[in-house]
């Protein structure tokens, strides 16, 4: 542990780690959000933000944040005030809690190394849906309600493939600890034997994040903005923060599970955390790229895809992994 060398007090270490994770939680979504602005813009034959911060609009999202804080905080008269207010928090907190367990580098570059890390991630990542459902129901808006119910329905579709894909990784690594999973990828990354699982995990993550092509819960051309329709100001910003932080968090989990975490290749002198962040960045880029390319699917099409194709493939993947594990 790096920090152990400098700090005696366990509480100081814990405080520093939590502080670092909070900073990461606030900075990473801004970086990804800015990247989305620019990447989408260039894919769409435009420039994107160019003014804020002078150089290629790098401060656009900072400016957006300041703007959100200034906006009037409107609660619809018919809304359930308490639930309406608590919902954004319910969406944001689980994402921070995923950040806690992602190992970014060897030797203590993580918040907490849990023995049940993977299980914990899977469990905590579903909590956000409760916030979405609460937001949709409390908004007293029919569009919000439809959006929230779509999000809940979507949960049924993606959760099983997500967990089944993760189960295969846990079997392969022989560990549920995220640090243990990275360490098990010393010789080769799990994306090689688990290529099907990787595809499933990324697809299911997209559905979990409500990112295109699975952005039915917020489908802006159909139901305005889903559960976020009635939100303004800082509460709206919290939803958006949760979305982009979610992209980073699930990219991080996918990196740890499939892309070897902090393990690099060819060049040995690049430190582990740089590798981790580079891989997270690559996955986030991929997610943004999909948004530029694909139309939106329909809720029932996602269900069909999940139950007819993704879950059978995930089960077969587990079976193969088991056979592989026993034979070799």
């Amino acid at each position, binding site marked *: 542990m790096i920090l152990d060398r400098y700090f005696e007090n366990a509480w100081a270490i814990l405080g520093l780690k939590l502080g670092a994770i909070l900073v990461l939680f606030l900075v990473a979504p801004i970086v990804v959000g800015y990247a989305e602005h620019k990447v989408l813009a260039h894919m769409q034959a435009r420039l994107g933000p160019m003014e804020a911060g002078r150089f290629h609009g790098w401060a656009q999202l900072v400016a957006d944040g300041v703007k959100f804080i200034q906006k009037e905080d409107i609660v619809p008269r018919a809304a359930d005030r308490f639930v309406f207010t608590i919902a954004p928090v319910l969406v944001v907190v689980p994402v921070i809690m995923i950040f806690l367990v992602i190992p970014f580098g060897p030797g203590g570059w993580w918040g907490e190394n849990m023995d049940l890390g993977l299980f914990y991630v899977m469990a905590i990542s579903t909590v956000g849906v409760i916030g979405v459902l609460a937001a949709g129901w409390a908004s007293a808006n029919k569009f919000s309600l439809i959006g929230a119910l779509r999000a809940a329905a979507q949960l049924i579709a993606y959760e099983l493939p997500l967990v089944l894909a993760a189960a295969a990784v846990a079997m392969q690594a022989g560990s549920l600890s995220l640090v243990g999973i990275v360490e098990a990828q010393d010789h080769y990354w799990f994306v090689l034997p688990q290529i099907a699982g990787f595809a499933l995990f990324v697809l299911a993550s997209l559905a979990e994040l409500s990112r*295109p092509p699975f952005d039915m819960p917020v489908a*802006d*051309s*159909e*139901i305005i903005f889903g559960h976020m329709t009635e939100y303004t100001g800082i509460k709206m910003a919290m939803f958006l923060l949760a979305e982009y932080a979610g992209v980073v968090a699930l990219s991080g989990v996918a990196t740890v599970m499939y892309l070897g975490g902090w393990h690099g290749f060819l060049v040995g002198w690049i430190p582990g955390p740089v590798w981790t962040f580079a891989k997270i960045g690559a996955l986030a880029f991929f997610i943004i790229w999909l948004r530029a390319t694909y139309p939106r699917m329909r809720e029932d099409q996602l269900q069909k895809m999940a139950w007819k194709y993704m879950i059978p493939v995930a089960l077969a993947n587990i079976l193969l992994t088991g056979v592989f594990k026993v034979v070799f």
Partner: protein
Amino acid sequence: MTPESRTITLPGEPGSAVAVTVAEGDLATREMTLNIGPQHPSTHGVLRVVITLDGERIHTAEPVIGYMHRGFEKLAEARDYRQIIALVNRHDWLSAFCNELGVAIAVERLMGLEVPERAQWIRMLLAEWNRVLNHLVFIGSYGLELGAITPVFYAFREREDIQEILEAATGGRLHFTFNRIGGLKDDLPKGFLRRSAELVRKVRNRLADYEGLLLGNQIFRKRTVGVGALPGNVAKDFGVSGPILQACGVAEDSRKTEPYLRYDQVEFDVPVGKNGDSFDRFWVLFRRMEESLRIIEQVHDRIPSGPVMPPKMPKTIKAPEGWIYQRTENPLGECGYYLVSRGDKTPWRLKMRTASFSNVSMIPYLLPGILVPDMIAVLGSVFFVVGDVDR
């Protein structure tokens, strides 16, 4: 199972409590009325559709129109014919040139005016560019409605190029007002045909982008094939025209069936679909654009020289007593002007038959029974401009 009466209240709707009868063990549910529009991202302006929903399935749908009624027909009775040209390019703002064309031809035919040959060909050239301009908007925005956010930017990139050359010729971007009774305001500017020919090549090359992003896309196909299928005979009953009718397999196009300008002298095909579903409608729009480019190329080769206005025009244009119905193939379908004159400077009555109005009237037929996402896929593919619906 004994029926049991329960009272339910919709969330957030004080006073919405109703008593419903439900079977034992069933949930007490009732249909939800949802207003799509007049302020909604996918209704292209202020169309309002009131739908009743069971879950996400639509039971009934009723378009409510008139939010954009501007009384063009009545206004036209107080404008002289030159002013009417500036008036009619406003009802369907995406096909301004084609609108003016209809009125100009109607008045010319009523007066028995001989329009110079060059003016006829230039009109055809600009009308076809206007058609491409219009179709690009719908191709781009249809992608947007299905969640593909990129094609719309490409479409508007091409549109900008086309607008530039149209601006060079007419001076206008939206309301060209380039037609005059008897011909055109001006001849084409120098080098227009060369620029136009270059642009045809450019646009044609870039159509491949849309083809890949939309027509060839697996998700796009899943979202549109078989959605909102319309049988040809029903379409005819509703008075549907243009790309939507052609998608139903009916090869009806006023440019072919009742040629005006010089459409009988150029070669082009009328694309027809098979099922009349959203995909076919979109596909037809795409093919129509290619056919328009084909017509434009032929015009480039065959455009004669000469004047663009008849040598002698009266100071005030008065249509002789009588009536006329002139139909033109507008980008969105058949646009007809029924003009009744009593020999004055102004028409006694100018009835507009606009394509969007008939297209929108089909909504109550198409929407019931489908899901909310499909509703967007259908609404986006019946191609309407709200100004053209309400006039």
